[in-house]
């Protein structure tokens, strides 16, 4: 008996089997269902308001990696760079009683939160930076979220492959005390590669949830009508999990 051949055969069988089974309907739904179990378990053990670890200044990484879009590269965005983002607006709209259009000055005038946190990319790497900005919950309370709104959508000024980037969270993470609209990294205005002039910090989830170049915040009842309906750019395009707590 050729044992090496047998082992290679068994391995090929497992991979081919898993790949095939993974494409069947029941297995696809089983694979998708773990996202719900993870969310349930992680919120069971930590409650809804467990805080992400905050570090000291000396713990920060020497630089902060930019990933995904490094520069939106549109003429409109270039004009904002040239103007020092003086005319950037953050719209707050959707299912709110009082829609807002905030200038950068408005955002800097709000109560600020500064936090030094670790950013974990789904790919595996981590960086640590100091972020400053108003708490999203304060903005949402100012706009008045309607009772049947279930999700907050973040609209972004960047597009990948012609599709606009967007992300979404539920109200647990939207009103989490560490969820901020950051306009500063390490005490200076956000670098372009990190999402200038505004990016989200969703500290208990992976990096792709932390939308960059944010231009609007929308309260909605369902994710179904937005993009391809899965709640975010990477969720739509590659099937990343919407709940990215692990």
């Amino acid at each position, binding site marked *: 008996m050729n*044992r090496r051949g047998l082992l290679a055969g068994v*391995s*090929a069988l*497992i*991979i*081919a089997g*898993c*790949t095939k089974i*993974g494409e069947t309907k029941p297995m696809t739904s*089983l*694979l*998708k269902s*773990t*996202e719900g*179990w*993870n969310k349930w378990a*992680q*919120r069971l*053990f*930590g*409650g809804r308001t*467990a*805080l*992400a*670890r905050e*570090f000291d200044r000396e*713990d920060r*990484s020497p*630089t902060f*990696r930019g990933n995904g879009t490094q520069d939106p590269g549109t003429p409109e965005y270039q004009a904002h760079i040239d103007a020092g983002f003086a005319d950037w607006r953050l719209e707050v709209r959707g299912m709110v009683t009082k829609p807002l259009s905030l200038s950068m000055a408005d955002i800097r005038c709000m109560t600020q939160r500064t936090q030094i946190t*670790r950013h*974990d*990319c*789904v*790919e*595996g*790497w*981590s*960086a*640590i930076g100091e972020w400053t900005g108003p708490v999203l919950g304060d903005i949402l309370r100012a706009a008045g979220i309607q009772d049947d709104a279930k999700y907050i959508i973040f609209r972004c000024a960047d597009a990948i492959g012609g599709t606009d980037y967007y992300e979404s969270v539920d109200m647990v993470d939207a009103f989490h005390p560490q969820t901020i609209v950051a306009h500063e990294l390490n005490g200076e205005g956000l670098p372009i590669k990190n999402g200038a002039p505004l990016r989200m910090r969703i*500290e*208990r*989830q*992976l990096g792709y949830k932390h939308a960059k170049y944010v231009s609007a915040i929308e309260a909605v009842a369902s994710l179904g009508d937005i993009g391809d309906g899965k709640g975010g750019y*990477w969720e739509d395009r*590659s*099937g*990343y*999990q919407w709940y990215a*707590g*692990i």
Partner: protein
Amino acid sequence: MKRHLLSSRLWHWINAISLIILFMSGLNISNAHPRLYWGHYGFAPEDAWLHVMRFPGWMTIPDYYSLAKAREWHLLFAWPFAIALLFFLVAALVNGHAKRDLTTRKRDWNWSEIKEDIAQHLKLNFEHSSEKYNFLQRFSYGLVIFIGLPLMIFTGLAMSPAMDANWPWIVDVFGGRQSARSIHFIVAFGLAAFFVLHIVLVLLAGPIGQLRDMITGGTLEVEKPAEGEAT
């Protein structure tokens, strides 16, 4: 008396399937960022202590690069892996399996006896112990079950930003998320090495009988019945 209890057999096979899928989907995940670091952060090539090879499609689940799909497989099979291990550990501690078969005793740590045990293994004589498992078996099974497998669960959870918020100690004990990720990788390959050795030894010890007993339970030939105990 059965050679393997039902709890051991059930766990063994759930664990085997889970571990294979976790390892192979893990290799796919590793391809997303094939560098390892120590500490809390790490992303730059010059800070990596190891540049990991790119694992080819025939080693990974699925058989093409997909971080999203590999993560789904990995996070799905983490559940039966962790739950089965928890039940098995409780059962083994309660029914004495852990103390009897999966731990070494002080008197086992006798260098000449250990050498003899190794020599017997090299001569492919596996039935040389008066106990059910010989020293090397008890040592390696104990190492895998009480240290290796739980480490995979804890370092895995330590990579979760949500779990780090819930239980800050889970990442602190490893010295940071990137350290936990490195340990996750190292222990995974340690377990893979155990897996290969385990299969080789089963093949050498007579795979048909070993497989049959791990499915049906087999029968244990009791050599020295305890006094006063009906057999």
